[in-house]
């Protein structure tokens, strides 16, 4: 026998005989490629959906700021909490998790630390979401869903409840009249208010008397009396 060569012995013979007897063949590479691709595709879809969730969340927050609340940079915590679109943030978290789990199921995914994968997926979704929002992807998704799904419309519809908390500084409703610095308003529950607007910043383009519904930030000063700090369109 030449050096470096060996002959067949027990187990190898048995294994080869069994393979032959059962007619076994190696599964084709495409089988494994397809199986691995499933996880990569799932990871990519999850990242994309997470990014869209973030884009809609950004849209929802900025939209609230533009249509009634203060600017994001001057929002107190309760404003931010009100504007956070919980549904989309939950979606974002779930899709990020799904992307991370999918990556760990790929051929070499187990070699990466789970926390590192989650952090990378989180950063990727966030970055992609910000990039998508440059093209108003969040707004478009929001409008598309609102136009086609009643339940979504219900969830995202005009925030009457949020603007029916005068004690917390949120008063919304229909402008009945404007007389100098006093605005008469009927809130969404039907009560009438006398609102002092002398010191308020007004971001409504139209004359207030013609605007219809407005969103006012300020504070209660007496029974059915309110002093406004800012006035914005309500939609």
């Amino acid at each position, binding site marked *: 026998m030449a050096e470096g*060569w060996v002959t067949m012995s027990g187990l190898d013979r048995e*294994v*080869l005989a069994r393979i032959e007897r059962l007619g076994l063949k*190696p599964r084709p590479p495409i089988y494994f490629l397809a199986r691995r691709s499933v996880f990569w595709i799932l990871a990519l879809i999850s990242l994309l959906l997470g990014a869209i969730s973030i884009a809609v969340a950004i849209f929802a927050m900025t939209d609230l700021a533009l249509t009634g609340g203060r600017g994001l940079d001057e929002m107190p915590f309760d404003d931010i909490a009100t504007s956070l679109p919980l549904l989309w943030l939950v979606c974002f978290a779930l899709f990020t998790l799904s992307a991370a789990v999918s990556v760990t199921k790929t051929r070499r995914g*187990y070699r990466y630390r789970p926390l590192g994968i989650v952090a990378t997926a989180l950063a990727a979704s966030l970055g992609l979401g910000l990039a998508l929002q440059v093209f108003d992807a969040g707004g478009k998704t929001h409008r598309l869903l609102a136009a086609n799904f009643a339940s979504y419309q219900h969830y995202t519809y005009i925030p009457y409840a949020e603007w029916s908390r005068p004690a917390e500084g949120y008063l919304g409703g229909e402008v009945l009249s404007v007389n100098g610095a006093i605005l008469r308003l009927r809130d969404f529950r039907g009560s009438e208010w006398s609102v002092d607007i002398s010191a308020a910043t007004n971001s409504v383009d139209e004359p207030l008397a013609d605007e219809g519904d407005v969103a006012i930030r300020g504070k209660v000063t007496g029974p059915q009396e309110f002093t406004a700090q800012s006035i914005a369109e309500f939609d």
Partner: protein
Amino acid sequence: MNQPVDEPDATLVARTLRDPHAYGVIVRRFEAVLRRYVKRLLGSHGQAADDVVQDVFVKAYVNLNDYDQSRPLGPWLYRIAHNEAVSYLRKRGREPSVIDGEDGQLILAKLRDENAFGAAPLSDSGVQQALEGLEPRYRDVLMLRYVEDKSYDEISDILQMPPGTVATRIRRGLERLKSALVKWNGNGGRLGDYERA
């Protein structure tokens, strides 16, 4: 049939995919280490090791195209062997085996070589008892590291976990082992309930 024994794993796998008879070389190359590993995992079911190892090689053959040729073949086969042995035991409602006396001696020798426990007095029966008391996740990595002589990278491939986690488990496993041994020595050669938990 004669075949070269020094052929690289990846070449051998590529050749097997063209000619199934070349698979005999792979079987011969790994049968001894896999049989020993499976036997160790099966413990009292060790007599089934040959059947399990045969299943391992058949399964590996069917999944040969899943083998990542940029990585060594050994850990890939170990992983299949580990899964097959665990699956065999689960079907019978058993846990993978604890380490026997011979393994205890092997580990003891390695720990002495590495001076892992400094001046702490070590005895093979103490090491074995302490190992039996370890949680399986620590015992698995210690066994692969000190009995099977696998690198962190190979253990990572076999147990499908990040190399950093392997390093952490080995470190923690050694710490627990050391703490159990100190108690073993101070307890007149007996482990407390905690170390056995």
